[in-house]
């Protein structure tokens, strides 16, 4: 019964979407027709503390459970503080967004920029996504 329940939870959590931030910029529809453009970059986020805590719960021996529990607490302390989503191992993954956006708009006139910070969560691992949707004035 427990296995069925846990499997159901895992399946339900598979690819859960999370929305952190939405920002809409000025929208100019007065200069001509618009073409939708979009850029998305992502990086793997990993919740090490939660993973270790799960390992501690699943450990068969008492000592392993204690050690993993201590490790989970230490990892949680390393990652405490304000944050958005899971920590990633590359702090520059969102830097190429502007260049990619420009490449999709030949006229160079971009309006209606939507900055969306979201994530796809797969248990303790997540895809931390930055998406920029916009309109190119043709």
């Amino acid at each position, binding site marked *: 019964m427990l296995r069925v329940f846990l499997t159901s939870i895992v399946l*339900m*959590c598979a*690819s*859960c*979407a999370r*929305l*952190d*931030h*939405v*920002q*809409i*910029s*000025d*929208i*100019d*529809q*007065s200069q001509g027709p618009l073409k939708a453009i979009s850029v998305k970059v992502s990086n793997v986020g990993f919740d090490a503390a939660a993973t270790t805590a799960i390992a501690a719960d699943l450990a068969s021996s008492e000592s392993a459970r204690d050690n993993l529990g201590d490790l989970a607490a230490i990892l949680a302390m390393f990652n405490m503080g304000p944050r958005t989503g899971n920590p990633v191992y590359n702090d520059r993954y969102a830097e190429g967004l502007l260049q990619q956006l420009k490449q999709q708009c030949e006229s160079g006139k971009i309006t*209606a920029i*939507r900055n*969306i910070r*979201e994530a796809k969560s797969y248990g303790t691992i997540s895809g931390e996504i930055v998406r920029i*949707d916009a309109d190119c004035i043709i």
Partner: protein
Amino acid sequence: MKKLIGCMAAFIVSNTLVGCVSLNSVSLTQLPEKREHLVSASASDLVFLGFTSQNDFVDEAVTALKSKCVGGKLTGILTKHQTTAYVLVFKREVIASGYCNTAAG
């Protein structure tokens, strides 16, 4: 005693069903000089226990906002992203408003 329990149950139920709002993000763009024609749009979705696989409702808000200022320029856009928690269900919502200025005025 039964009346007291009934009152307490009604109080708890009414409080939990009303929902608690958390404001996730707010942004504002440059305000125009002419601020006469304010338009607003919102879009939302309901998710059970937070399980969802998409954030497409954001696009609906933008499309609705655009449709209210066809051929014009929308500036001073205030965007709010908020989540309302009901019992086991969450309402995710994007509310956007801005000033529409057209060539016709």
